[in-house]
């Protein structure tokens, strides 16, 4: 494996994380720069720099023929896709396989099977993994919906087939509510998606998003690296993650159950890399398969922190057929607690993206903090890329210690010149139900921590900003 040349076809903090692992393992990390990001900070960690021509993602990180050309020109042996972009693209992984290039990720069949939502659910079901109960296919009439409601038990969700993002769906608690809502959801579906067909699904109250990290080698060994709770979300995107899950807590039976179920899912598609099986868990701790992400995930660091397993390095080793760092599931144990905050360039109240240019950046962290990021003074966050610019991760002996550390770290994180969600995180980290660990995916919508963010800091904060400008001018 040593000396192999690996192209990182990604940017930002994940490109840095991957480059670090490649360098450490003795491989050659090859990074790219594009015309709409000519000075990407990830090149700091890449041993070689290649120009990927183009000024938007379609011309660069998504352009398979162009990437294949670079692979040929620069004698690349393997590719790490990071997350997003081509990380779960069947065509890309198949093209690489045909050319004999190592894809640092699962085999193309696993990518395909888990990539298609309906296929992945069928596979999970066939493997004996619970999926959210509901109709098989479209539901045409109110009567049919009521029948299913009584079969699977209320509450149920009436949902547009083409739906997503909260539109075209309504919960119903009994037959009467189905009758009252059916036509309305159909109309909503038609107007929003141009297609009126509905599905019926069990409605899970105050659900938890819990996912299980999988790590597998090319010899059929599939391990789980325990779970993460990612229930703090806005716009169906995670902003805070924890490991282990405070909701599962000390219930080792449920923990074992969900983790081994994830292994079952992964084995069902002959999974052979790092990946994540996502579940939805109800208040009764019953869980249902949602999907499997066939890539390294944003929130992988919290799992690394509590288990000591270097997921990215092991993912690379797996891809090149090297043995993993462990030989049995028993070697992987949870140790302490980790919390990750996604630091995003966005308005802390509206939570809408807010690109811009960083003009000041300082960190003063306690012990036990990891900050995976791509920020530097003068860094410009363009509308082209994801607004997530860093991940602040704290590890502690227990949840209380981790919380104490991440709170102190957040107070020591200063990013000037752009809006960030730091003020929002500050509110959440001191909010009672979060501190107690008693939250579900309904958190942001119900508790509304964003309403407690002051739109503007006090006058002293402005004095500090003015002083920072004046002092900086003095020193240069």
């Amino acid at each position, binding site marked *: 494996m040593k000396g192999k040349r690996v192209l990182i076809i990604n940017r930002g903090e994940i490109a840095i994380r991957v480059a670090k692992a490649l360098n450490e393992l003795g491989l050659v990390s090859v990074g790219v720069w594009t015309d709409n990001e000519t000075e990407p900070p990830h090149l700091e960690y890449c041993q070689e720099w290649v120009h990927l021509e183009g000024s938007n993602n379609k011309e660069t990180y998504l352009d398979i023929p162009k990437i294949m050309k670079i692979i040929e020109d620069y004698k690349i042996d393997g590719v790490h896709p990071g997350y997003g972009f081509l990380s779960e693209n069947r065509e890309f992984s198949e093209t690489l396989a045909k050319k004999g290039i190592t894809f640092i990720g699962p085999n193309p069949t696993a990518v395909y099977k888990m990539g298609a939502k309906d296929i992945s659910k069928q596979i999970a079901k066939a493997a004996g993994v619970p999926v959210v109960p509901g109709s098989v296919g479209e539901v045409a009439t109110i009567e049919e919906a009521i029948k299913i409601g009584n079969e699977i038990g209320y509450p149920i969700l009436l949902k547009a087939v083409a739906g997503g993002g909260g539109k075209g769906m309504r919960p119903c608690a009994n037959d009467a509510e189905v009758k009252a809502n059916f036509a309305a959801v159909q109309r909503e579906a038609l107007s929003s998606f141009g297609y009126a067909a509905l599905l019926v699904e069990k409605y899970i109250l105050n659900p938890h998003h819990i996912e299980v990290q999988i790590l597998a080698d090319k010899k059929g060994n599939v391990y789980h690296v325990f779970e993460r709770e990612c229930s703090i979300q806005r716009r169906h995107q995670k902003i805070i993650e924890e490991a282990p899950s405070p909701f599962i807590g000390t219930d080792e039976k449920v923990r074992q159950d969900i983790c081994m179920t994830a292994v079952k899912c992964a084995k069902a598609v002959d999974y052979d890399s790092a990946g994540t099986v996502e579940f939805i868990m109800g208040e009764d701790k019953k869980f249902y398969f949602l999907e499997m992400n066939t890539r390294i995930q944003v929130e992988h660091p919290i799992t690394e922190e509590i288990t000591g397993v270097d997921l990215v390095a092991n993912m690379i080793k797996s891809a090149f057929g090297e043995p993993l760092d462990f030989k049995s599931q028993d070697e992987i144990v949870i140790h302490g607690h980790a919390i990750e905050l996604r630091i995003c360039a966005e*308005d*802390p*109240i*509206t939570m*809408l*993206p*807010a*690109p*811009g*240019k960083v*003009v*000041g*950046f*300082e960190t*003063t962290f306690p012990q036990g903090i990891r900050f995976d990021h791509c920020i530097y*003074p*003068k860094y410009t966050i*363009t*509308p*082209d890329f*994801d*607004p997530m610019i860093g991940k602040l991760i704290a590890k502690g002996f227990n949840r209380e210690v981790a919380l104490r550390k991440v709170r102190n770290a957040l107070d020591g994180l*200063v990013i*000037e*010149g*752009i*809006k960030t969600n730091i*003020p929002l995180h500050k509110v959440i980290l001191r909010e009672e139900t979060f501190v107690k660990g008693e939250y579900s995916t309904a958190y942001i919508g119900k508790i509304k921590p964003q309403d407690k*963010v*002051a*739109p*503007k*800091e006090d*006058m*002293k*904060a*402005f*004095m*500090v*900003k*003015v*002083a*920072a*400008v*004046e*002092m*900086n*001018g003095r*020193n240069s």
Partner: protein
Amino acid sequence: MRYHFLNQDMKEFALDVEVNKDAFEFTSDGEKTKMFVKTLAGKNYYSFDGTSWKKLPALGVNEVLVSNSEVFKVYRGFKPSGLNKGGAGALITQMPGKVVKLMKTLGDKVSKGETVLILEAMKMENEIKSGADGVIKTINVKEGQALDSGFLMIEIEE
């Protein structure tokens, strides 16, 4: 030295600062506040009481200053006269973005509320609508162009 801050709603306030070697004296609404400053090991620090110190970020002079959810234009030492030029007919970017589509050309008639162009900011498309009835007088952008915050894209003559 007077600093003028102007937010997106054109609300403004001022902060006076007298810069000395070891301390700054601020005046805001007639109230004076002293701040001590020190450089140590290549970094700058401030203190309101002379004993408790905190780090100052290396903050470059910038026209824009962000405070939680509000964005302020900063004018150091002067207050530009034409501050309020941004009337209903001036379409100014509120955040950086990229022009996806121009719906009008020069001389076109537009009515209040009509979409004039589409601006993409972080994967989301925003319809930029005219604030007045009138005629397109100037177009300072083209499709595909990336814009900073506070950029005057289009002017409409009422």
